[in-house]
């Protein structure tokens, strides 16, 4: 049996391209070729996200990310490769950001041993669905997520 990998979709389903995370989870759910994966939709509940992170050794987080690159750019990166930008005191119950949750898990010494974020630069965060432009990028996001699953399971 291959190693279990948890894929966590983050973001709001009704904020344009921020729906990328939940959408990827939905698409992966239809893919019968995937084995030994756990698909989780964390939505906007950061405490849920933290729980999922604490329960796994290998996690792939999918989210719309502001990488300051051209809209539609897709990247897979580990925490060592980026600087997370957030204001530590700007915490409310709704407003705990992904950056905040990752920092929290790290300071507890409980980050998954293998962790990668697959993100795409959004075109827009307005509208009730993914933008048509992001729909075109979706296959590439799915390809990179599956590539990471294979790396985690075989590596």
């Amino acid at each position, binding site marked *: 049996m291959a190693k279990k990998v948890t894929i966590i979709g983050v973001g709001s389903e009704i904020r344009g391209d921020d729906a990328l995370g939940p959408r990827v989870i939905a698409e992966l759910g239809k893919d019968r070729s995937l084995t030994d994966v756990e698909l989780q939709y964390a939505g906007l509940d950061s405490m*849920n996200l933290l729980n999922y992170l604490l329960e796994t050794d290998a996690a792939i987080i999918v989210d719309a990310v502001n990488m300051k690159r051209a809209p539609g750019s897709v990247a897979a990166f580990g925490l060592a490769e980026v600087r997370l930008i957030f204001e*530590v*005191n700007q*915490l*409310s119950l709704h407003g705990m950001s992904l950056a905040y949750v990752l920092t*929290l898990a790290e300071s507890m010494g409980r980050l998954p041993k293998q962790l990668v974020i697959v993100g795409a630069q959004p075109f827009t965060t307005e509208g009730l669905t993914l933008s048509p432009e992001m729909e075109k990028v979706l296959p590439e996001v799915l390809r990179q997520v599956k590539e990471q699953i294979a790396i985690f399971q075989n590596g």
Partner: protein
Amino acid sequence: MTAPNDKNIFVHHVTRVEGHGNIKVDIKNGKLVESQLQIVESPRFFESLLLGRRYTDVALITSRICGICSTGHTLASINATEDAFGYKPSEQTILLRKLLHRGENLQSHVLHLYCLVAPDLFRVGSVVPLAATHTDVVLRALRMKKLANDLAELVGGRAVHPQSAVPGGFTSVPKVSALLDMKKRLEAAVPDLTETAKLILSVADKFPNLQRQTEYVSLQSDNEYALIAGDICSSDAGRIDIHNYRKVTNEKVVDHSAAKHCAHKRSSYAVGALSRVNNNFDKLCPMAKDVAKMFGFKTPCNNPFMNNLAQLLEAVDSVVHAIQIIDTLVKNGVKDVPLDITPKAGTGVGAVEVPRGILFHEYTYDAKGFITNANCIIPTGQNLANIEDDMRTFVPQIVNDTKEEIAFKLEMLVRAYDPCISCATHLLDVEFVD
């Protein structure tokens, strides 16, 4: 030049609360001139969104007023709709609603105490430094939050914004086996509650001792700790029928706040866990009363900072009561009953104790079940004037502290109310006269 006894304090966007509010304090010659909690969040027009909507949609829409008390809004909405139609829910429906409500009460209080209040008591800026030094504490908070989420999901179909609770009952009911599993988990959570109480007790001396008498308003009922039904109870005026809620809330517009202020018998009144505990302490479960004893807590308690302790007592009460409700449901057997509610023209009021205090929804329906008028009065809006009155009493007591310390203590005061500013913001309706 500012004189040494002059202090202007402005806290832009108080952190660790919901939404955006500023604290403004002006001290001249060591005397308080002005203190305000400015609400700068934009209004959200939910009442207007409801106009013309069918009764089946209404609770789903109002649930979105808040991501923390979505269940409370759902239940207040359902109560108002059923009241308007003259519908009386079954005993099973009431029990399931109570169970769902307990899940939310626990979710919200655990999160507030651990993530928003604890950093003040440990004098750290957020929960992140705590996670490093008190990992077990944060893990416990997560465990309890997950339990509360799962309880809400078991009954409501989702951890937030419940789907199955609707006017007339439930569109799906939990299986007895799932209820029994949940009961085991709730029983196993009792040590976590005890540890939570010990933790807060260990830092309880950090709560300032502010004493100010005010009017405490909550639900009250003869035979239970009232949360989703009952009369309004005012510590000044006694019992009032919920249909007369406007005589209590008396909403008025003030110029420094996008949310209206409320007042009843005094210049302000308080709602929330402390009001509930003050008005209904005798109805709490024995374990919650034991925790109160640990803290030497007695009612009436006039220290607003003790709202945090009242939340702890309610968290304990919620776990204990959730177990009892499950026992009753299992004994009676849970039946999947079709909905049998019919619209009727009329006006109805729903009042529910959400984590932050008493919440009112009032709707008027036409004969086909479409809304023609809606009014929602949110707990944080009711507390705003009371918070300002607290500040007026508190600032002269701490006026010799440094500006930073005064600001810190005032933020702590605002946070004690666990305010949900985004929810409280709604604007005046106007009608132009030709």
